[in-house]
């Protein structure tokens, strides 16, 4: 198994390297002069030349790339053009704010999704299942930004239960901090729970119909034992993979949700950077996000090997 994991880690590193390459290429090779993008259309030639020199845009591309990559490896993510400060601390600050939201959403998704999916599968075709199906169907059909808006309208606007935007430091106002997390987490989780529970349900149904579950029942084992000891672990395999994929969606969802709730996190930073054409910031943020995603996938691989002994012992199924 060590070999399998080592292979996955190497692969992840390779993937991340390619990600940096792609990000760099997209920003520098697509139409549009970077300096023009930053300064906008109304610039004069001298300002343009000065900026180009400052950004080192006159060097050949591979050199620029190498300079940037080396910076990343040393933790120097460049300087924001708009804010004229190093990028890394800005990013870090925003990550600290967004991380609780993302992790909480993921946790809620995992728990609620797996539980709902399992319950629906075990009670297939009974009322519980039908209700769960309808709810999850709505969950995947409604865009998350719309959920967010509706939640604001209902919870903040009509019932006035929770604030609808902003962020306060947890050290200064813990309750306020928590209150401002609820709606964004809920918005993110709603869609994800729907997906995860659907998938868990269908995977669980497949497993419950399998021959080994039938054989377990034929041995007179209790239904609880059959479902939780025999079926669940094997049914969770696809769910684990999807949860990792959910992490990626989550990153994108953060962007949207933070816009809706005016939450000053990583997503908001990315939107700001894009609107301001702050290329170094955009590049750095995307690479960091892709990095998180890759780590999440690796974690999924580890969990996978734990769940499926066939991979653990032979490297393949």
């Amino acid at each position, binding site marked *: 198994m060590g070999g399998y994991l080592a292979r996955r880690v190497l692969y992840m590193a390779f993937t991340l390297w390619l990600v940096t390459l*792609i990000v760099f290429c*997209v920003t520098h090779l697509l139409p549009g002069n970077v300096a023009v993008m930053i300064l906008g259309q109304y610039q004069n030639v001298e300002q343009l030349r000065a900026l180009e020199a400052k950004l080192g845009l006159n060097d050949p591309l591979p050199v620029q790339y190498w300079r940037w990559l080396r910076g990343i490896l040393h933790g120097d993510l460049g300087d924001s053009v708009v804010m004229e400060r190093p990028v890394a601390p800005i990013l870090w600050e925003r990550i600290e704010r967004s991380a609780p939201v993302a992790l909480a959403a993921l946790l809620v998704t995992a728990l609620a999704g797996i539980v709902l999916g399992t319950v629906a599968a075990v009670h297939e075709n009974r009322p519980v299942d039908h209700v769960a199906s309808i709810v999850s169907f709505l969950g995947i*059909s409604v*865009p998350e930004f719309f959920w967010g808006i509706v939640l604001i309208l209902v919870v903040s606007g009509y019932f006035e239960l929770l604030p609808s935007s902003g962020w306060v430091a947890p050290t200064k106002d813990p309750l306020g901090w928590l209150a401002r997390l609820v709606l964004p987490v809920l918005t993110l989780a709603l869609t994800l729970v729907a997906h995860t529970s659907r998938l868990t349900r269908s995977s669980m149904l497949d497993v419950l119909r399998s021959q080994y579950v039938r054989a377990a029942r034929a041995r007179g084992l209790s239904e609880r034992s059959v479902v939780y000891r025999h079926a669940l672990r094997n049914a969770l395999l696809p769910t684990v993979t999807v949860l990792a994929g959910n992490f990626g969606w989550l*990153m*994108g969802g953060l*962007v949207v949700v933070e816009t809706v709730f005016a939450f000053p996190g990583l997503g908001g930073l*990315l939107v700001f950077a894009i609107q301001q054409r702050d290329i170094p910031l955009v590049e750095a943020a*995307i690479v960091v996000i892709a990095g998180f995603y*890759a780590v999440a996938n690796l974690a999924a691989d580890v969990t996978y090997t734990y769940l499926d002994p066939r991979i653990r012992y032979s490297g393949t199924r």
Partner: protein
Amino acid sequence: MNGVRGAGAALGSHRAARAWALVRGRATLMVGGAIVVAIVLIALLAPALVRYPPTEFHVKDRLASPSAAYWFGTDEFGRDVYSRVVIGTRLSILIGFVAMAVCMGAGTPLGLLAGYIGGWTDEVMMRGLDILMSFPSIIFGMLILTVTSPGPFKTAIAVGIVYAPTIARIARSVTLSIKEEDYVAAARSRGESHLYILFGEILPNTWAPLTVEASLRVTFAILAAAALSFLGLGAQPPETDWGLTIAEARKFMTSAPWIALFPGAAMCLTVVGLNLLGDGLRDALDPRLARRARG
């Protein structure tokens, strides 16, 4: 006949359960199909269906709630929300379809080829697709749209590119399983050309599973395109689509919620219709033989 009750339930409830399953399968397909067709029709006939020109300001009636004059109310400039929603249908549907077309058009051949050729080509292609998939989709879309100026078509294409790897994976796994069938081996033993085997033997058997999977994934693409629109990277004013309308309406959420709710409802309806259609297709095309009783 003594002691009729056995392990199965009574025959009566079985008949009911079976009938319900049949109807439910067909109903899903029909309802979903009806919704999708209706929305496409609305998109096509949009100019004829609006009540006021969508860009016309009615400043006197700004922020009016829904009434007989303005079915869905008006927005902050006094524009008729109903008309804007109807006109927005065109772009929203167009973006969705273009995204779907790019997604399937790019992903399917790649997956088929990777699955069929196998070996190094397959490895390389799959690694490449893995890399693409390691970008969260919306973010990749944002990246592309940053460096090229945003617009509805570019959004659609960006989303299509982002979801193509998923479709390619599905096409690849379907191809891999069909490649193992003996009738493909029989074709090879006749010395058939690769082109014939791919298009004559394998492809006809991939339609069904591919359609089912694709119709379910395509809704993700549509939702992603809507999110990008919401972020301002889709349709640009004065053109309108639903995502943009909702974004513009955020400021007035508490004072005039109808501006955002109606386009949102329209979007939900579309996606619900597509999901129902996908589910219905899956129920219809799935090997029903597998569910038939084995004697």
